[in-house]
């Protein structure tokens, strides 16, 4: 637990001092919204289109952070330090995943209101949407940590993360988009089938958290 807190504190402090992930993600998200505004040639969005634009943007923005998640550990010898220290490797996994969730929550706190301002007539759906986004963040953290730690030790780091991560995220995107769609529908939020989709999202999160926990030691060992 101490190791977890130390690594998480270190990561958040590094992020606060260098500001290398979250501002880039926020800027990227706003730019992507502008791209979608002209790409789709729409000034308001609702339903499945709104859910798709928002979730695809969050997902691509998350890739920016996931790319950078283990760069410092790899370049500055953090992995070796963790291996030397008498702590469980899962502390690193949990701390990185939590840091990623924090980045994503901050990103969404910026990006979702911007999205609402740009595209939505009715903000009522955004509050329940937060629940969906929390589950999305957990799923992104679980898969992102795995993929990022694999990619950090390879030659083609920036290439591998999106290549491995995007297909892994498709089921999560399906569930999240379907859960978010009725919440963002034009006539005000409705909750048709929300329970089923949230259950699938939660199942996805649990499965990949368990997989991560089971295999993580093998990613560290050397």
């Amino acid at each position: 637990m101490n190791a977890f807190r130390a690594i998480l504190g270190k990561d958040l402090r590094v992020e606060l001092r260098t500001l290398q992930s979250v501002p880039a993600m926020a800027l990227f998200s706003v730019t992507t919204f502008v791209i979608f505004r002209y790409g789709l040639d729409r000034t308001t969005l609702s339903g499945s289109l709104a859910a798709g634009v928002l979730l695809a943007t969050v997902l691509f923005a998350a890739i920016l952070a996931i790319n950078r998640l283990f760069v410092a550990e790899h370049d500055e010898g953090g992995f070796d330090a963790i291996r030397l220290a008498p702590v469980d490797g899962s502390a690193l996994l949990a701390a990185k995943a939590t840091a990623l969730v924090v980045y994503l929550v901050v990103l969404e706190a910026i990006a979702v209101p911007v999205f609402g301002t740009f595209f939505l007539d009715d903000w009522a759906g955004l509050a329940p949407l937060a629940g969906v986004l929390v589950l999305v963040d957990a799923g992104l953290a679980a898969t992102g940590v795995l993929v990022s730690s694999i990619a950090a030790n390879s030659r083609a780091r920036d290439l591998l993360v999106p290549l491995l991560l995007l297909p892994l995220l498709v089921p999560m995107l399906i569930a999240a988009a379907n859960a978010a769609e009725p919440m963002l529908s034009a006539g005000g939020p409705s909750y048709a089938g929300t329970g089923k989709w949230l259950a699938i999202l939660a199942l996805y999160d649990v499965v990949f958290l368990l997989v991560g926990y089971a295999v993580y030691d093998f990613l560290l060992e050397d």
Partner: protein
Amino acid sequence: MRIPSLRAQAAITVAVLAAGFALVFFYAPNDADQGFIQKIFYLHVPLATCALAGFIVAAIHAIRHLRTGDAVHDARSYVSIHISVIFGVAVLLTGSIWARASWGKWWVWDEPTLVSFLIVFLLYATYYPLRYAIEDRDRQARYASVFAITAGAFVPLNFIAVRAAQSLVHPRVFATAEGGMPPRMWIAFTVCLAGMALLWTCLVRFELAAKSASAKLSRLRRALEGETYVASGSRIAPGIPSRAPSPS
């Protein structure tokens, strides 16, 4: 049980597949709705079943590799995925042909099984860039196993999510209102499935044998050239056990 030699298994595979397709064309009745084109079912479904089963087998080998650290399990996991990805290409092609014949389009998005399979295929296709991007052999094997396990867990999840998202319009040859396929279709299908499973294992064994042979060859070549060290294995299947080169 004695495992037959690769040559014997290849002969059995050819015989069973030939018998299966003979049954398909001369014994099984034409489908009442879809007519002759439904025969592709006897090729498409066994291919898909074997490919998916192969991904699961790869995940099991990967677990064993991580537990024991024995590189032979990694080689098996790699070859299982490799053959299953090749089967996957065939599944997508035959599925596409069937879709064209049944629904008039080469690709149908509201067809959960085909779409799930495409996503699974895309994920497993990234196995190759992942492997080749990691230079250190042990680490490559370990990370590939982690990937195989993660992707193995992904396969059922993906099918759940895609199936939940779409209406069921895939031709359900197994479960019709009358309670399933007629027995003649079942017999033909079972023989085809057995033949395809034999083909899959045959190809896996063949590739493993080829890899271990080429590893042995490169070791012998190095020994001939007078190098003193013994390098392990080929680039993609490190450390396939084979007899140590004789000192010469």
